[in-house]
């Protein structure tokens, strides 16, 4: 009964023609959004700007964090390895100097 009622009424109400909205109506709403959101989200300093960006792009933030961590690990390994080489070289040099003495 209610479904039929609804169908019938929808048919009746659809006959009232709606005047088209202005051409830039959605654009105006978008501008309002820019003003409203910019007012509440405007960062005060550089760090908050980074935080707002991070909140907006969580996937990109995770990727950047992963790349930074991986790069730090590789750099650390490289530094440790090069330090070992340096120690070996110093050892060899001191042995050589001792043998010459």
């Amino acid at each position, binding site marked *: 009964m209610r479904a039929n009622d609804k169908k019938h009424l929808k048919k009746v109400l659809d006959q009232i023609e709606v005047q088209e909205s202005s051409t830039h109506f959605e654009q105006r709403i978008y501008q309002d959004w820019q003003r*409203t959101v910019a007012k509440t989200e405007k960062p005060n300093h550089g760090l908050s700007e980074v935080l707002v960006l991070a909140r907006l792009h969580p996937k990109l933030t995770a990727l950047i964090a992963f790349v930074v961590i991986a790069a730090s690990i590789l750099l650390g390994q490289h530094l440790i390895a090069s330090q070992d080489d340096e120690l070996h070289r110093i050892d060899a040099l001191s042995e050589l100097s001792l043998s010459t003495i």
Partner: protein
Amino acid sequence: MTLFPSKQHRIEQALLKRAVAGDSKASKEVIHLLSSPAYSLSWKMLGNKEDAEDVVQEAFIRLWKSADSFAGKSGLFTYFYAIVSNLCLDRIKSINKGFFEEFDEIEHQPIKEIEWSIAEGVSPESIKKAMDVLSSKQRMAMLMWAYQDMTAEEVGLAMGMNKNSVDQLLYRAKLKLKMELEKGESHASE
């Protein structure tokens, strides 16, 4: 309304959150999704372009500002229509200042089936006139229920009423509309 948000409601909630966090793509999606049906509803409520556009613009500003209160327990449409409906009713009140608007009786009457025997060819003007005879609350409930295809529960959520009161409001609105349309029809045939 359910206790926990459904999947669709969670998607809408996430979309609105992104829009409010400053994501312009999400905001455009929300605007595109809601603006046109909300404009049609407001236009049918208020009857002119300027008022309808003003109401929808104001409703969006309220939506951005109150996005945190949208918990996803109802759909985004229902949440937004609640804002639009309040703004439309406020505007009608301010336009009709000083004029008496029919009070929607609260006593409950048994809801009976309504026989629709109105001919197909009722003119849009007669329909508009008949709609104008309804009280603003009846008109709003009728438009949300029949034109926007919302359920009585959703209409209740949007208008801050329980389902029984919405059913009563709709029943009285339908009776009145039917009577007005039949009156219009008999005038036309005379």
